[in-house]
C-alpha cells in the first residue's frame, strides 16, 4: 500500500554543514511512525523540511501520492498535513475554544470571511468543542490559553492540529518538558490519533517511542541508520551504539 506520507532522499545543508542527508521514510496510513535520534541528529531539520518551514536542497515529499516538496506551510495544511510545535505556540490571549475554532474555520475555508462574527460559524465552534471534549480539555474551553498548564498546552497543540482534519499529522517532540504522568497521557493520546490520521512523531526519548510506534526510523548525524518495528529497533546494534554512546557520554558529563 502507498504511504500516506513518503519522504525520498531528503537533504538539507546549512553552509558546509549537512544537517540532513538522503533521508527516506514512508508513513503507512493509520500508522504511528516515529523519527528518533540523539540531539543534533537532524530530526527537527527533516521535520521542518517536510512541514514547509524549510526548503529542502534535494529530495521529495509526497502527501497521499501528491508531490508537495517545498510547498508553503499554509498550502500543506489544505493538502492535509498538520503539525505541532516543539516549543508550544498556542495563541495565548485567545480562549482554548477560540484557538481550536480558528483552525476549524481555516479548514472550512472561512479565513477571508469579513462580515459575520467569528463566533457565529456554528460548524467550526461545534467541531472545536467536540475535539476538546474528546481530548479532555472541554472544561478549560473558556480559559485563556496562556493560563493552561504546560501539559494542557501540549494537548491543545494537538487539538488545534486535529481541527485541520489532516490525513497526516506531524508531532514535534510532544512530550518535551513533561512529567512522567503527563507523558503517559500524551502517549495514549498519540496512539489514539492513528484512528484519525497517520502520525509522524519526532522524539528523542526512545522509551516513549518504542511503546506507541508501529515503525521507528532512527537518525544520527543527518542520516537514517535503521528503520523497522520497535522490537527490531531496540535490538539493533547500531542503534544501541548511537544511543548508548550518547547516553554514556551524557552520564559521564553529569
Amino acid at each position, binding site marked *: 500500500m502507498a504511504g500516506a506520507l513518503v519522504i525520498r532522499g531528503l537533504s538539507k545543508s546549512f553552509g558546509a554543514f549537512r544537517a540532513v542527508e538522503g533521508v527516506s521514510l514512508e508513513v503507512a496510513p493509520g500508522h504511528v511512525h516515529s523519527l528518533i535520534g540523539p540531539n543534533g541528529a537532524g530530526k527537527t531539520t527533516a521535520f521542518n523540511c517536510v*512541514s*514547509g*518551514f524549510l526548503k529542502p536542497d534535494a529530495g521529495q515529499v509526497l502527501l497521499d501520492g501528491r508531490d508537495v516538496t517545498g510547498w*508553503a*506551510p*499554509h498550502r500543506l*495544511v*489544505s493538502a492535509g498535513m*498538520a*503539525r505541532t*510545535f516543539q516549543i508550544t*505556540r*498556542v*495563541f*495565548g*490571549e*485567545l480562549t482554548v475554544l*477560540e484557538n481550536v475554532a*480558528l*483552525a476549524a*474555520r*481555516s*479548514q472550512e475555508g*472561512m*479565513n*477571508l*470571511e*469579513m*462580515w*459575520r*462574527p*467569528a*463566533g*457565529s*460559524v456554528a460548524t467550526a465552534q461545534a467541531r472545536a468543542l467536540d475535539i476538546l471534549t474528546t481530548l479532555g480539555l472541554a472544561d478549560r474551553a473558556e480559559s485563556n490559553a496562556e493560563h493552561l498548564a504546560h501539559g494542557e498546552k501540549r494537548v491543545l497543540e494537538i487539538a*488545534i492540529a486535529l*481541527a*485541520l482534519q489532516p490525513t497526516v499529522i506531524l508531532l514535534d517532540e510532544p512530550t518535551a518538558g513533561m512529567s512522567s504522568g503527563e507523558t503517559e497521557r500524551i502517549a495514549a493520546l498519540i496512539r489514539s490519533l492513528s484512528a484519525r490520521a497517520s502520525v509522524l512523531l519526532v522524539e528523542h526519548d526512545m522509551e516513549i517511542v518504542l511503546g506507541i510506534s508501529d515503525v521507528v526510523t532512527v537518525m544520527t548525524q543527518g542520516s537514517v541508520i535503521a528503520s523497522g518495528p520497535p522490537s527490531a529497533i531496540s535490538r539493533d546494534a547500531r542503534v544501541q551504539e548511537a544511543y548508548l554512546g550518547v547516553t554514556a557520554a551524557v552520564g559521564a558529563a553529569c
Partner: protein
Amino acid sequence: MRKTAGLRGLVLPLVAAGILAILPYAGASPFTITLLTESLIFAIWAMSLDLLVGYTGLVSFGHAAAFGLAAYAAGYFAREVTGDFFFALLVAEAVVIPVALGFGFVVARVSGIAFAVISLCIAQVLFTIAVTWRSVTNGMDGLVGVPLPRVAGVTLASGNAFYLLTVLCLVAVYLWLTRLVDSPFGRTLQAIRTNEERAASIGIDVHRHKWLAFVLSWAVAALAGTLMVFLKAGTTPMSLHWTESGNVLIMTIFGGIGTLLGPVLGSTVFVFVRDEFTTRFKAWQFVFGLVFVVVVLLFPTGLVGAVNRIRSFLWRARS
C-alpha cells in the same frame, strides 16, 4: 446572550454619535466644531492604522502615505472636475487602492522593523514626488483652491454640515471595523500578530492576509485624507511627511492599540491638547510627549487601558 451583546455594542457608538451630532446645536462654537471635525478625521485615520498596528501587529511609520495621497487625488479632482464629495472619494480610492495593492504586495512579505522602515520609505517617496512634481502638486506651496464639498448636489457651505458628514463617516467606519475585527478574517489577523509561523501552520496564507489588511487600512485612510482636503480646502506635502506618520502613530498608541475606540480618544485628545498648548507656548510637543510617555509607561494599552483599569478598580472597591 450574543444578540444582546451585539445590541450593546451598537448602543455605545450610536449614543456617542448622537451626542457628537447635536454638539453644534448645543452651543459649541464654530471654532470648536472645526477642531472637532479635524479630530474626528484623525480618528478615522488612526483607526485605519490600528487595523495594521493593533490587530495585525504591523507597525507602520508611513501611514501618512495613504492619507496624503488621497488628499492630493481628491483635492485635484475636486478642483479640476467637480466638488462632489463622493466622486472625489471614489477618485481617491481609485488612486490609493492600486498603489496600496502594489506597495502592500512587497511590504506584506516582512514584519517588525523591516515593515516599519519600508513603510517609512514609501511615504518619503510620495513626499518627494509631491514636492518635485510641481506642475500637478504645486510643490511645497501645496494644492490650493479646493472647492466646498457637495453631497447630492447640495453644497456643504457651513462648517456644521461638513462636521455632520464627518460624524457619519466616523460612525460608519467604526461600525464596519468593529465588525471586521470580530469576523473570521479579523481573527486571522490577530493570529498573525501573535505568531506568523503558527498562523501559517493552521492554514492561514499569512502574506495574502497581511496584504489585504494593508490595502483595507489604506482604503480607510483614504477616506480620512479626502475629508481633510475638503476641510482645509487644500493640502501640502506635509500631509505626506514622516512627522504626520509619527503623529497618527502617537494618537493610536496613546489612545490604545487594538481597541478602535482608543484611536478615536487618542486623536481627540491630541488635537485639543495641541490647540490648547500651541497658543500658550511653542514647545507643546514637549508637553504632549511627556504625557504620552507617562501614559504609555503606566498603561501600555493607552487611554482605553487606563479607563478600563480605573473602572475595574472602582468596581472592586464598591463590592
